[in-house]
């Protein structure tokens, strides 16, 4: 597979992680200084922990990355409220250690993984992906993680495993948004097994080289860059291999508007708004939305012969 062709850039053009981080720390320092002087308070974000041993990868975009501040303050994570700034304000109550992820269902080797064991399951790599929200905005995010396929291989799915289901933590004490019935909790997402095995599908544990912030789905989340953002389940506690297509949270909530596949597709509109364009956070003009969010070369074959208008 020619991963480099359409969206990789030469290694020489990439800002090394260290340099980037130093720059960011410098700017954060300046911002903190300015904010502190102006308001007499310290800025919001507590210093995140750097992840060790993160490798660069070929999965990098030649597009400006969305600033850390925007990625961590403009979120859809209804477990903490439906406002975009609710997660960054309220996710402090989430407890990410100890944390376990139950891998179960149609597998020969079910196992409940401790999060720290999962972190050592495969080498961590940085991948810069586009993220397109179903609402019509997008970001470019440097995730840190490893391919979901690594975990799946160790679980050894049986022949009955056709789909993979991802379940988010359900605990209203930690996730105050779950007191509201806006969705049926817990949040459930799902992929077809071949989608889950695809090399682009990532289990993310970090962002900008640091431990994943709680509002972004700590300690472990899915990232499926060619699908609308809501497909990428956050704060995962269980991964189940099943025979039947899972009934996912948004399909259950509004079946006429959200489908199981939810591939980014500029030709298939949301029933209430257009998906032809998107607003990249930080940009003024809207840009055209790309088929499969620009990952068509890698993933289009998964859907050959399928009517994507019907399987939206």
């Amino acid at each position: 597979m020619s991963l480099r062709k359409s969206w990789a850039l030469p290694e020489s053009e990439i800002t090394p992680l260290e340099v980037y981080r130093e720059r960011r720390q410098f700017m954060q320092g300046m911002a903190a200084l300015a904010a502190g002087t102006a308001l007499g308070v310290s800025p919001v974000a507590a210093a995140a922990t750097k992840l060790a041993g993160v490798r660069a990868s070929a999965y990098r975009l030649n597009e400006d990355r969305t600033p850390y501040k925007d990625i961590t303050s403009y979120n859809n994570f209804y477990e903490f409220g439906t406002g975009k700034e609710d997660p960054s304000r309220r996710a402090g109550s989430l407890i990410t250690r100890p944390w376990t992820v139950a891998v179960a269902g149609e597998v020969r080797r079910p196992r409940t993984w401790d999060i720290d064991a999962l972190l050592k399951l495969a080498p961590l790599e940085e991948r810069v992906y586009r993220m397109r929200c179903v609402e019509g905005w997008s970001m470019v995010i440097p995730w840190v993680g490893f391919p979901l396929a690594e975990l799946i291989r160790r679980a050894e799915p049986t022949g009955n495993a056709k789909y993979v289901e991802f379940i988010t933590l359900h605990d209203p004490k930690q996730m105050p948004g779950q007191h509201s019935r806006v969705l049926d909790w817990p949040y459930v997402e799902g992929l077809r097994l071949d989608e889950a095995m695809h090399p682009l599908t990532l289990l993310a544990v970090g962002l900008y080289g640091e431990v994943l912030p709680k509002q972004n789905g700590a300690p472990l989340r899915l990232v499926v860059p060619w699908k609308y953002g809501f497909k990428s389940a956050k704060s995962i506690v269980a991964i189940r291999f099943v025979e039947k297509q899972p009934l996912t949270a948004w399909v259950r909530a509004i079946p006429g508007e959200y489908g199981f596949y939810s591939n980014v597709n500029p030709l298939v509109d949301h029933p209430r708004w257009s998906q032809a364009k998107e607003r990249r956070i930080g940009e003024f003009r809207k840009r055209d939305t790309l088929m499969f969010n620009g990952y068509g070369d890698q993933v289009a074959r998964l859907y050959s012969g399928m009517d994507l208008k019907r399987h939206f």
Partner: protein
Amino acid sequence: MKRIGKPLLFLVCLLPLLRLSGLAMTNGLGANPIEFITRSTGTWTLVGLLLTLSVTPLRRLTGSNGLIRYRRMLGLFAFFYACLHFTTYIWLDQFFDPASIARDIIKRPFITVGFAAFVLLLPLALTSSRGMIRRLGRRWQGLHRLIYPIALLGVLHYLWLVKKDVTQPLIYGALLLILLALRLPWGVSMLAAVGGRFRHGGR
């Protein structure tokens, strides 16, 4: 109070715009400033409409006919924020692309009703002057009853645009229904009765 009432109200009505400008200048509009501006101007249009519609019930409740003097200004501020809201959409969302705008108005019900509400507001704003009130006579009041469907369309516009959490639009909807119900015969007599007891009670 009579002399400073109107200038004071004028300044109060400008506060949402001042806040937006202030936030814009201090980088305070968040990660998606255009969405923020669109939401904010839309919200204040709805607030303006509801405030305009609350003048008559308040007048009946308090028996103070002087309140009517503020109604036009409130209505015009609703129109002012509607213009800002509409401009934000035409400019910052669609970048003056007439084909795209036309498609949106036809295809997207929430845009259709929002646009209809805005168009219906135009004749009301244009006939708000003292001269027009005089010229139109009895027909003026009939024309200005358009504010009822306009407000309903505004709430519908909000309801249809939110993704899932309809709490906010339902709050606006409930307030609107209360304000409309207070105009029905039983609402009018209830306001008079409650107001009367309030004013004469305890004597």
